[in-house]
């Protein structure tokens, strides 16, 4: 509602387009609802657990990649000896795109942005003398995820673990790869089929494994506003859920294993409301639309991390301050897990020093700021609660738009979402460059800076060569007759539209490579053709 006083002032809008009043009062909130909502109680607006960080603080899980399986193994041992229990593993781009190290298209990229995996041998090296029951491994893998998940299971089986209690997570959210990040391989519908295969297999055989983490993060990094970030992520999560239900999996056997990965940059209150409103809406979707009985099926479990999108190359030290605020936002939003981009991440793979500052930022928040003392400290704030309600409403509306585009799978296959997100990225960038969106050090409070040399991770050509030699040696030494039979099984299973997990697990056990298995699937499914809207 317009008030005469407000007309005197310039209107203020959030990035999402929501207008902000100069003052919020009890008139802006639904008092009855406020009295009813409690942490740990459906619809979980105030948090998924009754005691939240009072019981245990959020988990810190930084993204890290090490070029070779050998180095990764060293790092695992270091972490275990220092009391850590989890690692978020980065893979190099050839592994992510399903190419072997000796593929010409992998030239110059082997081991560059993460660990290289060609065959099960590499996993055996990476996890040597590691108790898989003691460390939870998060695989940041999407396009080739079905092969890498199969490898992790094959490794556990070969080492004699009981896979019914095996834990771990995979990112495995292919739909967002078509919107941002771009490590897609197969056409959209076939890509989704592979995700559902992993969900089905895990629900039946490895119930403690989390096969999918739906990422709003990369969608927002590609230019989506906070409403779209949540709306598209929820549409994607629903697409996987629908696929799982079609295979006869009960909602309560699957929904509690689903987790989310979200992005934080921009307006502080907008982000907090996004998570609180999103958490309430997701709970309602799972209970009201899918009729889940268990409370934990309705939980929006998330990693909410400080994103690279807010960081700047200019005055990079300012990114340390930005990230500290992002961490605060994440904690005030009731996240389960937190990660921060490091201050140098706008222009390079983080240096050790920068990564340490990120870690300390989160530790200072936990141990010095009293952030864990009381649950949902912003609950009841007129502004935050009003904005939370608004976000729930707006995310719902945005989801209806996707439905009008023929659903998320269609909207992604036709490039509709990519186009809308790119145009928004353009508008935002132009806004920054024209000074309409403030960015300290970039368009206000600028300082002339001489271009500084960047600590750059040099490419390890020797390691790449050794990796290729290792792969070629394995290809000579393995039982190639068995490999051939296994790959043929993958082929016929793909042609007959069967769940591919069993045949891929069998193939990787015989040291069939990532590239070989992906190539078999390309022969059946074809490859994704990027819709170009320009």
């Amino acid at each position: 509602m317009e008030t005469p006083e407000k007309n005197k002032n310039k209107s203020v809008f959030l990035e999402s387009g929501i207008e902000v009043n100069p003052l919020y009062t009890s008139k802006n909130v639904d008092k009855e609802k406020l009295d009813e909502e409690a942490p740990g109680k459906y619809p979980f607006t105030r948090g998924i657990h009754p005691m939240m960080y009072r019981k245990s603080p959020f988990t810190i899980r930084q993204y890290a990649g090490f070029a070779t399986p050998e180095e990764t193994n060293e790092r695992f041992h270091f972490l275990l000896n220092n009391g850590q229990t989890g690692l978020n593993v980065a893979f190099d781009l050839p592994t992510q795109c399903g190419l072997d190290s000796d593929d010409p298209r992998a030239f110059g990229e082997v081991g560059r942005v993460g660990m290289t995996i060609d065959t099960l041998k590499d996993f055996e090296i990476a996890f040597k003398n590691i108790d898989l029951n003691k460390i939870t491994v998060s695989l940041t893998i999407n396009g080739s995820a079905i092969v890498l998940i199969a490898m992790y299971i094959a490794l556990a089986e070969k080492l004699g673990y009981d896979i019914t209690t095996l834990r771990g997570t995979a990112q495995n959210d292919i739909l967002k790869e078509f919107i941002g990040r771009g490590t897609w391989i197969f056409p959209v519908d076939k890509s989704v089929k592979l995700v559902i295969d992993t969900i089905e297999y895990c629900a039946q055989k490895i119930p403690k494994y989390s096969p999918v983490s739906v990422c709003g993060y990369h969608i927002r990094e590609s230019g989506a506003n906070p409403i779209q970030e949540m709306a598209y992520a929820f549409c994607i999560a629903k697409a996987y859920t629908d696929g799982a239900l079609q295979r006869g999996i009960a909602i309560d056997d699957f929904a509690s294993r689903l987790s989310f990965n979200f992005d934080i940059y921009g307006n502080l209150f907008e982000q907090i409301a996004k998570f609180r409103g999103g958490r309430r809406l997701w709970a309602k979707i799972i209970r009201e639309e899918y009729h889940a009985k268990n409370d934990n099926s309705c939980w929006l479990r998330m990693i909410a991390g400080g994103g690279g999108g807010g960081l700047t190359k200019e005055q990079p030290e300012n990114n340390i301050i930005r990230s500290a605020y992002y961490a605060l936002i994440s904690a005030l939003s009731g996240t389960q897990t937190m990660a921060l981009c490091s201050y140098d991440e706008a222009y390079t793979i983080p240096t050790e020093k920068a990564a340490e500052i990120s870690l300390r930022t989160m530790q200072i928040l936990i141990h010095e700021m009293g952030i864990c003392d009381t649950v949902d400290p912003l609950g009841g704030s007129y502004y935050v609660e009003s904005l939370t309600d608004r976000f729930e409403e707006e995310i719902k509306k945005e989801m209806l738009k996707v439905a009008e585009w023929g659903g998320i799978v269609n909207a992604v296959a036709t490039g509709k979402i990519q186009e809308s997100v790119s145009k928004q990225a353009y508008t935002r960038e132009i806004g920054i460059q024209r000074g309409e969106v403030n960015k300290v050090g970039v368009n206000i409070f600028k300082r002339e800076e001489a271009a500084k040399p960047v600590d750059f991770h040099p490419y390890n050509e020797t390691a790449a060569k050794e990796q290729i030699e290792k792969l070629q040696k394995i290809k000579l030494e393995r039982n190639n007759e068995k490999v051939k039979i296994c790959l043929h099984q993958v082929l016929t299973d793909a042609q007959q539209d069967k769940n591919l997990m069993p045949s891929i697990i069998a193939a990787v056990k015989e040291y069939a490579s990532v590239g070989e298995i992906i190539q078999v699937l390309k022969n059946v499914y074809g490859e994704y053709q990027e819709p170009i809207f320009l």
Partner: protein
Amino acid sequence: MKILLSKPGLDGHDVGVKVLALALQDAGFDVSYTGLRKSPEEIVNIAIEKKVDIVGLSILSGTHLLITKKMKEVLDTHKLNIPWVVGGNIPSQDVEPLMKLGPTAVFPTGTTVDEVVNFFKKIENK
């Protein structure tokens, strides 16, 4: 002037190249974009086929030196003598070595959209 923008290598960071494509379109240029993961051979073939006047490469995985070197070789093989530029996550110490490999210009992170658009305008008016 016809512009071809492309992403060689395997990295999927395409926000920058798409933002630039939209900005160049707004400035009145005829812009096409190849999409992700194109090899220098594919890019040069598309450039010849579409008869473009200039090619822009966007690289953010750290492979800029390798790819630029390869691009120069492929351009020479096909005797395609048109301006070409490289942009992306390029550390300042790599700008000079990159320029020596033959591109007309290098645009590291931090270059404004207007700066790049103005550069293309200058090339057009040459």
